[in-house]
């Protein structure tokens, strides 16, 4: 029986990882064919670096992700702190509301924003994408930070207050360092989601404001070249760096709590 389970695990991992490995391997292919191996080369990466469209898309992705991450981390953390610290009438309603942007299919959120922008005459450009990204990022940040706030011992805050610290000092000297891993975790998650988002960006970005994801999609539609494998691999590396950072932070605070 145990053997059968282990075979299942193995098959699931093969299923999950073979496609990813295929993309990475074929990004080093020398030929024009996207899935026929012809020999090792870095040609596609060289082409990629020389492609001004990729650089422009990369710049847009970074601007959107940075702006959306900073704003959503600040206001998401503030909300998480408030929800953890205070008890008030609409508290549960607000907690449930925070989950709503995650429950609604992203295409619905995307077209809702698109009709809204059309109605109030907000021009479609970079700002319209940043606004949209903050909507889903803020929920993720608030949830991650709130989980961290629930996980620690609040008596240390009371101790600080008893010993004469004011609330402001208590927050920056006690609460903030304790929840910092949660905040950074939330920010990393927001950044990754923002960089990777396609559907919402696709609908809310203006003409010419292409991000990396939209660039990949357009290349898919207008003929696949191995350059696509190279861009994908670079985005993969970006994601893996962020996962490692996330795990490293997480591992560190597990050790701290022990």
């Amino acid at each position, binding site marked *: 029986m145990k053997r059968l389970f282990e075979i299942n695990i193995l098959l699931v991992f093969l299923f999950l990882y073979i496609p*990813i490995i295929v*993309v990475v391997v074929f990004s080093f292919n020398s030929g024009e064919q996207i899935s026929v191996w012809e020999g090792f080369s870095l040609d596609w990466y060289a082409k990629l670096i020389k492609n001004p469209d990729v650089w422009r898309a990369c710049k847009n992705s970074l601007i959107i992700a940075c702006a959306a991450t900073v704003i959503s981390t600040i*206001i998401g953390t503030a909300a998480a702190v408030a929800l953890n610290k205070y008890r*008030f009438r609409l508290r549960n309603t607000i907690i449930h509301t925070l989950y709503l942007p995650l429950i609604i*299919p992203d295409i619905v959120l995307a077209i*809702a924003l698109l009709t809204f922008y059309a109605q109030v005459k907000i021009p479609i450009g970079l700002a319209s994408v940043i606004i949209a990204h903050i*909507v889903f990022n803020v929920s993720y940040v608030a949830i991650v930070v709130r989980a961290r706030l629930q996980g620690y011992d609040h008596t240390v805050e009371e101790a600080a207050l008893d010993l004469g610290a004011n609330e402001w000092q208590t927050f920056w000297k006690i609460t903030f360092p304790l929840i910092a891993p949660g905040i950074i975790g939330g920010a990393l998650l927001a950044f990754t989601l923002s960089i990777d988002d396609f559907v919402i960006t696709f609908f809310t970005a203006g003409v010419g404001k292409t991000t990396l994801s939209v660039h990949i999609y357009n290349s898919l539609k207008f003929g696949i070249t191995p350059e696509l494998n190279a861009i994908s691999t670079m985005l993969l590396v970006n994601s893996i760096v962020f996962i490692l950072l996330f795990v490293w932070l997480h591992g560190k605070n597990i050790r701290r709590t022990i």
Partner: protein
Amino acid sequence: MRHNYRLFILLSPVILWLLCFFFVPLISALIYSFVERGTYGGVVWNFTLENYQRVFDGLYLRILWRSISTALVCTAICLLVGYPFAYYLAYYRPKLRNVLLLLVVVPFWINFLIRTYAWILILRTEGLLNSFLSILIPGFQPLEILNTPFAVQIGLVYGYLPFMILPLYAALEQMDFSLVDAAKDLGASPRHAFWHVTLPLSIPGILAGSMLVFIPTVGAFLTPDILGGGKVIFIGNVIERQFKSARDYPFGSALSFMLMVIVLAGTVLYFRALQDSESAET
């Protein structure tokens, strides 16, 4: 009074943001779904129910049903594959448990578009699957998998399997397996113990996982678009066309609200079932 002031400062940015850029846009789309489309893409502010009548047209109902049934099949496959996976991690507690869990999460962090695109390389007629099979079987005729509903189904399972495994694991990990041992000691066969002890106790995980898989798959736009090659149309693709090429915002909005109704109905059913399972336990 001071408390109220601080609460207001901390909470108002989020509330304002969601109000302005989430609730108001949803209402704006709802209004759009009740007006006429203009001749050149805009809208004419006349009230009409025509957009919803079109949604219930045979063609769109069929597409809606295809989205729902594919999402249900996807959920079932994820459950069948994910359950033994989560069970193994929770019950046998292998040494590498945390690493294995991390490896399940990693794909979640990787760009969905890239993960879907990867399947084109594998499934196309000149792709890796066919090359592999033709080496194994001499005289093998390449399979045409890409741009079929089957390819879309593979892509959807691939995209959302981790969403099933994690909540299942969370539910099974908290479970007290000594209850299973007790059932076995009292003469229950392993199968009986599974159906009457393990499975009922893991229902919250099953429900949560099913929700997390069903909701994004029923509204999927990217997977059918990329792996279906325009031949496998989901409700998400019809919505996209109304906004990107047909410029029929009112009809697209009406379709989106139908999709939202399905998703919200699913959510309500989920909470109902969760309550039932909890009251059954006590």
